[in-house]
């Protein structure tokens, strides 16, 4: 079973996100970068499938030079090899552009199963997985919390509002991960040492036969006009009182009479 995992490097969820001087991008200095948390689930699931069924796990990322750290992390977790698509012309791609690049890379490698995150916790696009599947002409199952492999087919337990739906698709297929799927392992020290020697291939858009005009900033369908900070809330109003009854009465009064919410 050949499994490919798409991984993206994103700012740590703890980090302060600052708007750059151009007003349409974020400041990249001073940011701590991590593997997208949903992609950790995808790497973990791929490793578990390989452990159960055999095969190989390849991790693929498109991004600047630093993205290699994330690929090394995936290798240290246990992936077998990595492909880094790095090209200045790919920078600033929107979700469709990114999907075009990733799909081109995937066409050049064997795969039975593609795993990726449901969304990157950077731009929160929730798009790249389904878009890659569409460009490859294969089925996809999104937001899965359980994966079952049958003969030539995959079953994904998809979380929807108010329940779970089990959907079956023929392989090859693409799955996107939802929290609850597994608990990703940490990279062990021996794993980190081994990762240094594992193959990591770097590819350009030309290597993939992707026309730079269709991706990157040039190919964007969605144009960022401005980034803003969310409007600040008014200062908190503390509700006090002598007894829990008094506090509760006052809270319910303001919510009823002033905020008119209950």
């Amino acid at each position, binding site marked *: 079973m050949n499994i490919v995992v798409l991984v993206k490097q994103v700012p740590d969820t703890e980090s302060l996100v600052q708007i750059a001087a151009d007003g349409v991008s974020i400041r990249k200095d001073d940011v701590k970068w991590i593997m997208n948390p949903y992609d950790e689930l995808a790497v973990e699931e791929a490793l578990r499938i390989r452990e159960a069924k055999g095969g190989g796990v390849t991790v693929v990322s498109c991004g600047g030079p630093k993205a290699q750290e994330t690929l090394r992390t995936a290798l240290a977790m246990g992936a077998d090899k990595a492909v880094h698509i790095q090209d200045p012309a790919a920078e600033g791609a929107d979700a469709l552009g990114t999907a075009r690049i990733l799909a081109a890379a995937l066409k050049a490698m064997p795969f039975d199963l593609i795993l990726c995150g449901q969304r990157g*916790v950077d731009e929160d696009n929730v798009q790249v997985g389904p878009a890659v599947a569409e460009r490859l002409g294969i089925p996809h199952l999104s937001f899965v919390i359980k994966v079952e492999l049958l003969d030539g087919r995959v079953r994904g337990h998809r979380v929807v509002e108010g329940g779970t739906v089990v959907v079956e698709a023929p392989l090859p297929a693409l799955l996107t991960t939802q929290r609850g799927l597994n608990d990703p392992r940490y990279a062990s020290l021996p794993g980190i040492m081994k990762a240094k020697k594992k193959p990591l291939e770097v590819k350009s858009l030309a290597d993939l036969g992707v026309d730079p005009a269709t991706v990157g900033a040039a190919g964007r369908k969605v144009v960022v006009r401005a980034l803003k900070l969310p409007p600040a809330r008014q200062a908190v109003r503390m509700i006090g009182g002598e007894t829990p009854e008094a506090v509760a009465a006052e809270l319910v009064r303001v919510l009823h009479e002033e905020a008119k919410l209950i």
Partner: protein
Amino acid sequence: MAEGIVAVTEQRDGTFRKVSYEVASEGRRLADALGTTLTAVVMGSGVDPLAAEIQQYGPDRVLALDHPELADYRVEAYTEALAQALAGDPPALILIGATVQGKDLAARFAARRDAGLAMDCTAIELRDGAFVFTRPMFGGKILAEVTIPEAPRIAAVRPNVLRIERRPAQAAVAKPALALQGIPTAVVEKRMDTSGRIELTEADIIVSGGRGTGGNFAPLEELAAALGAAVGASRSAVDEGWRKHADQVGQTGKVVSPTLYVACGISGAIQHLAGMSSSKVIVAINKDPDAPIFAKADYGVVGDIFQILPKVTEAVKALKG
């Protein structure tokens, strides 16, 4: 700009999800502002009652995509049906609800049409004749204003944000023939919660609990019952096994936009705020006066939830008589 607004509704087992009324109402407002028409799309198998119901929200036309293959949602079938029905000149804008299904369908359909998609928008404005979409990024730490210069344009809108407006209309219902063969996926099982619990992303009020509950959610459940609210949880409460993953609010859980969010024994970690900061009013109850949640709340109570919540529930019951 191309003509017409299209609002894609969502139903399950013959009942509309609330976001359907939101996209139809917003579609009507945008169509009026542009002086163009609104088409409401209804998808499923046996959708006549839904095609009739959606007329309450003012479409000029209803497009009923009615086919046995559309009985259960499968992205390939829904994408294909939508692509067939909306072939030809693209409309000015396609609106869809950013639910689990809507996000999935919007992403695949956008790739099929090579269309710009603004995911999970919280506002749509017309500025100088062009749509400007506001969408939170980085878990709500940043709001991006984006445009999509060329049609087809797709906006997936966050549930529970846009105003619902009834505008009864007499719209013609069109039922195009659909060719849906060879759909590769099959639904093999549905496990739905039939307890009638309110879905977090659709709830007007959410009472949410964290590690401070110590695993005892009973006082929260009682308050929620009195308020007609849904119960949410922080990741810590989920990790402890006290609540289900589906209840988790935050960056790696659900993003919710209720009118009232009551955070009980939740410290207010940045990843939790990512899921609830677009709530209209936030109330925090926490025994630590320095808990970060107070910096994001509108109303704060310093105290023990086990002492405060039962009294709040009593006061609410007294108010509602």
